[in-house]
């Protein structure tokens, strides 16, 4: 498989399990093709490790086409590596140079404990969604497309928020390990549409409460999350979530 001409040194975080201490381990790779994806390069590394009788590096991946949100990896100090708007699986080795040393670490956050090596437990995100990131309606048959008029600008904003794949790059890169970009995208995609209105103010309170409980940090508006998000989720969502939260807490009389 390795038919390229790149020689690389990888420094990969190896950690046995949640409770053990980890460390960076050096691996030399040769004849890596620049057309390989970053994960394919890891497949090559793991093949070599297995042949040598060593433990392969554990990392998360699924669709490998940038839409599932499973792949992670903090590559050379940036989540999903140096390229904008790509996930690790869509990052190619041509983004690196022959002879490069590449440091690969897992997402680091208290709320994302390491399972093994580069795989972290992101079920905190699932619990935030379960706390309110849904609409409670019996959908019945599909309605006519125009039964519920939604302004184009509103629909587009909801769609852009819904593009979040929940990979956790925002948490990984935030200096405070804050999950506010993720939570705000999930709050916004429903708050912007008519179907999300009945539970709008209950939802934002529940989701923020769950976010705080999971031990994520607080947003300081550095904008790192927006810059690193592979789906280009905007900080406007955080402002919208804050507005909805203040409305819910200070104006709405409903207790959540």
């Amino acid at each position, binding site marked *: 498989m390795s038919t390229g001409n790149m020689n690389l040194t990888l420094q990969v*975080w190896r950690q046995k399990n949640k409770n053990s201490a980890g460390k960076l381990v050096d691996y030399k790779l040769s004849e890596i093709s620049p057309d390989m994806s970053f994960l394919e390069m890891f497949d090559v590394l793991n093949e070599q490790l297995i042949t040598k009788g060593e433990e392969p590096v554990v990392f998360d991946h699924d669709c490998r086409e940038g839409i599932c949100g499973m792949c992670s990896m903090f590559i050379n100090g*940036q989540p999903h590596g140096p390229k904008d708007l790509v996930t690790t699986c869509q990052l190619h080795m041509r983004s690196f140079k022959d002879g490069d040393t590449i440091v690969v670490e897992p997402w*680091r956050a208290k709320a994302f404990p390491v399972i093994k090596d580069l795989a972290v437990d992101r079920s905190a995100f699932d619990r935030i969604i379960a706390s309110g990131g849904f609409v409670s309606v019996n959908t019945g048959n599909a309605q006519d497309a125009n039964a519920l008029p939604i302004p184009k600008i509103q629909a587009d904003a909801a769609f852009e928020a819904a593009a979040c794949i929940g990979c956790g790059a925002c948490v990984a890169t935030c200096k405070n390990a804050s999950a506010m970009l993720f939570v705000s995208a999930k709050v916004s995609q429903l708050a912007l549409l008519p179907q999300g209105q009945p539970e709008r103010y209950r939802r934002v309170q529940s989701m923020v409460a769950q976010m705080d409980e999971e031990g994520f*940090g607080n947003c*300081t508006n550095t904008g790192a999350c927006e810059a690193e998000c592979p789906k280009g989720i905007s900080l406007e969502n955080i402002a919208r979530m804050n507005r909805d939260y203040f409305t819910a807490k200070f104006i709405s009389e409903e207790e959540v």
Partner: protein
Amino acid sequence: MSSLSKAFTSSIGRKFVMGLTGLFLISFLLIHVSINALIFLNDSGETFNVAADFMGHNIVIRIMEVGLFAGIILHIVQAIMLTAQNNAARPEKYAYNKASANSKWYSRSMGLLGTLILMFLVLHLYHFWWPTKVAVYTHQEHNTFQNIVMIFQELWVVVVYVLGVISLGYHLLHGFQSSFQTMGWNHKKWTPVVKTVGVWFSIIVPIIFALMPISIYLGWIG
């Protein structure tokens, strides 16, 4: 815990307090810099002393002064709480984090800049606020302008003040627009305006402040 107190101890609630007190302190800076700029009239502090005397004795201003200190303390206390939570949210640091690729250094250094401002503030209060208070409560005449001229004769004081306002400038450069974002005031039309005003505010106000000790030390004003 009641629903409202829960709101204020949540992540967004604490940020709300940070943003609101930040905006309040910004409004104070505007008043502070405007009144102090009266020394540039170069009339031996005549006009400035009238304003300073009013600020020192007027009952409304003195009540607002209590609010100002409350605002500063609230801003600091919330910052400490939030920073403690933020540090706890990432117990194990990255071996290699290329933060410069995605954010400005001053946006990541608000705690450090704030601490520098606080250290400066202690000296600043000792220099100017304390003598004024002593004069008010002992019913003595106090020439604020003369006090300023006297204090800014020392080079190290001038240097500390200039460094203090540079810290303030960078703190504002992030804080001004950040407080609007935290309050939820993000808008396609208005956010660019807020950001531009914020940048100019963060440059102009510290420069005017810095010019005060510099002009007095160099004898342009006296």
